[in-house]
């Protein structure tokens, strides 16, 4: 099991934070372009899922899986988007995303009066806490790939 990378988007699609751990394949475009592509795709999937669902969708889009990786998606009621890519075997990633939101984002970004909301996150404490949370999670297993 492993964690590849993490994106946090604001509700307007601004990339607030990006970090990667075990990422083997680079996209070959700049981080900004990649973030735009990613957000665009998520936006489309979200509306697609909500329209195509035969039942009343409660939570909407949660994750998708390819042969190589899974993309897990958490949208908060306030519109923040947390996106975490892991390998396909990972369990309880949603819980991890919830933790990330509750224990790290709220604590060290929302409660830090010098962090402007809807702008890329600068706080060093936030960055180290994200890293700490990911590395201590059972999903994170630093295999030599």
């Amino acid at each position, binding site marked *: 099991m492993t964690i590849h990378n993490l994106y946090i988007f604001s509700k307007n699609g601004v990339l607030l934070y990006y970090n990667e751990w075990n990422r083997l394949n680079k996209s070959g475009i700049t981080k900004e372009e990649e973030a735009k592509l990613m957000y665009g795709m998520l936006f489309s999937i979200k509306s697609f899922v909500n329209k195509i669902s035969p039942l009343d969708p409660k939570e909407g889009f949660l994750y998708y899986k390819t042969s190589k990786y899974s993309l897990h998606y958490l949208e908060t009621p306030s519109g923040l988007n947390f996106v975490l890519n892991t390998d396909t075997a990972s369990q309880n990633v949603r819980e991890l995303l919830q933790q990330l939101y509750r224990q790290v984002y709220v604590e060290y970004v929302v409660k830090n*009066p010098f962090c402007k909301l809807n702008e890329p996150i600068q706080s060093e*404490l936030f960055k180290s806490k994200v890293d700490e949370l990911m590395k201590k999670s059972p999903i994170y297993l630093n295999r030599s790939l």
Partner: protein
Amino acid sequence: MKPQVADSKINSSGTSVSSTTSTLGEANECLFEFLHAEIMNYVIEKNASDSNVKNTEENLSELEWMGFGVGYRIIERLTREWVRFKDELDMIKFICTDYWSSLYHKQIDNLKTNHHGTYVLQDNEFRLLKHLANHNSNNNNKQYLRECPRLIAFTCGLLRGSLANLGISSIVKAEITLIPTCKFHVEVQRV
């Protein structure tokens, strides 16, 4: 060395007040923090737009005065169950223990004095600073050091106001070298 208050048992209802405030939970706690942050931003922005004030140093006296007013009032409420304090040191000890734990949910970690009217109150994890940086994080405790005085000014006033209402006129300064540790220097003014 942690300061001990000899007659803390008398203050049974006082301690229950502080315990209920801490169990009331998150909303209660962050409401003050967010409000404080907004007041801070308001004062800073107002000073910035004021063209008369073009100093290199930020003018935080307004924040300090607000703290003074709050401190002056809050002390009435927090000491209502208490017997009269013996002396100055007794009051400072009260500030370090019950007062601090009702306001910031923890006690002052270290109290130093030269017995000539100077007291140094050290809080190793000051509540208004703990979201900025912490001790375990390597090397990043200095990130917000320049902005920190804004978060401290109110509390300096709070201390000064409280002491003023207890009959001690003082000057309160704060010193931060490593976030979130904060030292408050209280200098008692003798007439």
